[in-house]
């Protein structure tokens, strides 16, 4: 019951939704659109579950870890302020405290955290890009040519534009197409295994 019921639901829902794709009738479209709409509804609860998990973990830290207590309180208080500030739907508009906190706290911090990657990518390029083998040389040469596009060098830049366009639309295209097709085949195989109940890791233990 604990496993066979979910497996049965996956099989039934999977088969019905697969075949409705090939049966364009009003009835099948009705099932299709309401099944999808219900998923969004379930998703709302799942997302809220994620937020509750964050609160639980942060509360646990605030109670039991003296080194993390201050930071846990910062997280909980800022979250509380956001919830109170955004309680009224009108506060979703620009100019409210809710949106000011988004614009002047969330945006700069998140953007700056990711901007640190610029330093790491520069350091990684310096250390990793060495022409040790044919493969490494190909990688280095292509990356070099693509990066050179950002530097205006007159006639060389004009030639380089053509070379970059060719790299992106011929060898890069072939390589990425192979990956897309590989991923597509993998997705199909995994989907079939899930629907048939062969792949059941998503159910977890017990």
């Amino acid at each position, binding site marked *: 019951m604990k496993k066979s019921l979910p497996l049965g639901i996956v099989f039934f829902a999977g088969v019905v939704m697969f075949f409705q794709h090939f049966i364009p009738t009003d009835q099948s479209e009705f099932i*299709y659109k309401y099944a999808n709409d219900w998923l*969004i509804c379930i998703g709302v609860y799942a997302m809220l579950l994620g937020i509750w998990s964050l609160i639980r973990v942060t509360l646990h830290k605030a109670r039991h870890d003296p080194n993390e207590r201050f930071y846990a309180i910062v997280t909980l208080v800022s979250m509380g302020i956001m919830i109170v500030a955004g309680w009224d739907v009108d506060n979703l508009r620009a100019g409210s405290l809710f*949106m000011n906190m988004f614009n002047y706290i969330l945006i*700069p911090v*998140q953007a700056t955290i990711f901007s640190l990657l610029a330093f790491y990518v520069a350091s990684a390029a310096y250390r990793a*890009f*060495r022409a040790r083998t044919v493969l490494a040389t190909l990688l280095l040469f292509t990356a070099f040519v693509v990066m050179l596009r950002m530097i205006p060098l007159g006639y060389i830049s004009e030639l380089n534009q053509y070379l970059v366009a060719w790299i*992106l639309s011929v060898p890069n295209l072939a390589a990425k197409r192979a990956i897309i097709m590989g991923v597509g085949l993998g997705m199909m195989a995994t989907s079939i295994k899930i629907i048939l109940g062969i792949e059941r890791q998503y159910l977890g233990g017990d």
Partner: protein
Amino acid sequence: MAKQENLFDKMMSIDRRVIYLLLGLAVIVPAIFPFDVPVATTPEVESVFHFVDSLGTGDYLFLGVDYDPSTMAELHPMTKAILSQCFSQDVKVIITALSQNGPGMVESIINEIADQYGAKNHIDYCFLGYKPYPGIVVLNMGVNFKLTFPNDYYGASLDTIPVMQGIKNYTECAGVIDVCAGNIADMWIQFGNGRYGVPLALGVTGVMASDYYPYLQSGQIFGLMPGMKGAAEYESLSGYKTTGIRSMAYQTSTHVIILAFIIISNIGWFLSRKEEKKIG
């Protein structure tokens, strides 16, 4: 001899703090001594521009703003340029934001750009907002907007919004442009274009850009704006210049530094290998 070997080793093992410092200086120098960099346009960006340019009064464009603050540096300029072009041509725009912080991204620019062109919410554009599970949302919007978004982002019923009258789903729009960081672009390709055949163009981050050229050649997308360079190209085509073109000088100075480091490390490596061979 030993002195030379040391020099080669040093060329290959520059301290990371030196790299950070020089990269930092490379972004500060253009801020103090600004200079212009020519922006050559590419066919993939031109096709997006010409598509929007061909739209006129009464046409609808669907714009997906599916990115967070972490990638707004690359994608915000594209969104701004497209919105300004649409509003200047009286094109109606329907907007969604399917990433977690996407609605905040839209809200931070929409009023400013709309005000510049006198565009009105609910008359010239409609911001539908956010719903979880982007793949499912894309599928359902291909049937009917109202099914997934009975109300817009501000809580107004779609039945009462003038711009949403007479349009049922995005296949009735001239096309979809998804400005995106992450796999929502794949969902638009698979579900939006794959299932419903809607003409689709993408604005993506530099990290993602090379992955989407196969879709461009197969015709699943008709245009592609790759990262900040794509944004700068679009800005130069549309004439609505913000941070895209402005940042090109900074791109040049930082790329010079990174390429210089790569050259130094490779010269060091070649010369040290040559020395090793000489010594035997």
